[in-house]
């Protein structure tokens, strides 16, 4: 049997990769994909504990996380399209209307 902390370490690794993607990339599509990566890391943790504790609630929460991820992707991609219509760019450094 795989020890539980190996699942947690995998989740931590995927989450950190997602954080690096959000913080370093300039392309907004890659940033949205990195957010999906982080949500997957959370799901791995939830389902690892659900399987090890024999409690299905973790899997139900993973379903809610997937729901939120779908909503986030829909709104995020709507923002990307609106942004591309107005500025013709995918580079987040050029979206500086609210920066001072």
């Amino acid at each position, binding site marked *: 049997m795989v020890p539980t*902390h190996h699942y947690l370490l995998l989740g931590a690794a995927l989450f950190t990769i997602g954080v690096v993607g959000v913080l370093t990339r300039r392309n907004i*599509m*890659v940033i949205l994909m990195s957010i999906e990566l982080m949500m997957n890391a959370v799901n791995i943790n939830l389902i690892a504990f659900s399987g090890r504790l024999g409690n299905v609630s973790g899997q139900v929460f993973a379903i809610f996380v997937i729901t*939120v991820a779908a909503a986030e992707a829909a*709104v995020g991609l709507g923002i990307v399209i609106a942004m591309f219509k107005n500025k013709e760019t995918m580079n987040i450094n050029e979206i500086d209307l609210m920066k001072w």
Partner: protein
Amino acid sequence: MSVEQVLFYVFAALAVISALFVITLKNVVHSAVALAATLLSVAGIFLTLHAEFLAGVQVIVYVGGILVLFVFVIMLISVEKSIVERQFNKQWVIALITAVLLIAELGFVVWRGKDSLVLAEPAQPAPSVLGVTGNTQLVGETLYGQYLLPFEIASILLLVAIVGSVALSKRKTQAE
């Protein structure tokens, strides 16, 4: 090593490697393909944890729904311009230091607490009130029984997201 262990380590390695490809590749389409590989590997990891329903949901909703949506949007916008640009921010050194600190902290906490995570025996799912034992039946019963109100709230969230994304992508230029 048992089959479960071999499968877990293979899928974990695949997931981490393709996740690294997601954030390093220049072409967004290649990133999307790497993300598909990551999501499918995570579905495999769900299978090693006997969460068969979630593995199916992962493949259908994530790979079949969300990722296809990503690819559609990539198709609508021009990729060529963003490939020749610089890919990483100026703050990437600070970001990398932060990430190293984060993984060190998470790894340290998990490593210190690993003995308390060892269960004497992996608990079997308790048989439900309806007497069902399959994974899908158990998830369905918990979702529509104990978590009925969160389920309804999630459906409202999806409705709001649909309305919001339609309102966002409606044509609204300065000329009008």
